[in-house]
C-alpha cells in the first residue's frame, strides 16, 4: 500500500511518501488512520483532528468506512485550498 502525504500532513509526518503493509485487521480508511496514529508522534500529531484530515483512495475522495486494500494508493492531506 502506497501512502502519499501533502501540505502540513507531509510536514508533520516528515516525508512525502512511503510504502506500508498494515495488518489484515486494517480494512477501511478509519482503521488505516488509527494504525498510522500509533506509528509515532509525527503521525499522531498530523492525524489528531479527523475534521481536518482528508483521504483519497486511488485518487478519489474517500469516507472513513470506505475500504482500503494492499496495492491501493492512499493520499492523506488537509482540506484543499486551491482556486
Amino acid at each position, binding site marked *: 500500500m502506497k501512502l502519499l502525504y501533502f501540505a502540513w500532513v507531509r510536514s508533520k509526518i516528515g516525508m512525502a511518501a512511503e510504502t506500508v503493509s498494515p495488518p489484515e485487521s486494517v480494512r477501511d480508511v478509519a482503521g488505516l488512520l488509527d494504525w498510522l496514529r500509533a506509528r509515532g508522534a509525527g503521525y499522531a500529531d498530523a492525524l489528531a483532528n479527523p475534521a481536518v484530515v482528508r483521504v483519497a483512495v486511488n485518487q478519489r475522495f474517500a469516507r472513513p468506512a470506505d475500504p482500503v486494500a494492499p496495492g491501493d494508493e492512499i493520499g492523506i492531506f488537509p*482540506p484543499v485550498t486551491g482556486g
Partner: protein
Amino acid sequence: MAVRIQEADFDVGAEMAALSAGRSDVGGVASFVGLVRDIAGGTAVTAMTLEHYPGMTEGELERVEAEACARWPLQASLIVHRVGALKPGDNIVLVITASRHRQAAFSAAEFLMDYLKSSAPFWKKEIDAEGRAGWVEARASDERAAERWQLPARADD
C-alpha cells in the same frame, strides 16, 4: 474540454481566442481569473507556494468539467491552474466556458470555480514579510458555495 496544471503563467486573451477559433457556433465566452492577493487575514503576503496531488488533481478537474458539460450546453471549456512559486498579483487559476448563450457560460464558469475550490487537491502556503510560512486554511464559505449546486437527492439513490 481541457484541463492544464502548469508552473508557467497563462495569457487570458490568447486562451479565450483559442477556445472559439475557427468556429462560428459559439455565442458567448465567459472567463474567471483568480489572482494572488497581497493580504490574508490582516497579514501582508509576500509570496505563495502552491502544491498539488499530481494525477488526482487532473482527475478531479476532469470530473468537474464533465459534470458542468452534463448540466449546461457548453461548446468548449478550459481550466488552467498554476502550481509552484507565485507572488501577489500573479495569476493562479483560469476558467473559460463557451456556449451558444450567455447564461450557460456564466453559470458553468461559476460552478467550475466553486467545485474546483472545494474538491481539487491544491494547497496554498503563504509567506509573510518576516519570512514566516503558513498553510492557508480551508474556508467553510467555499464548502457552502459548492454545496449550493448540489441537486436534491433522487428517491432511487
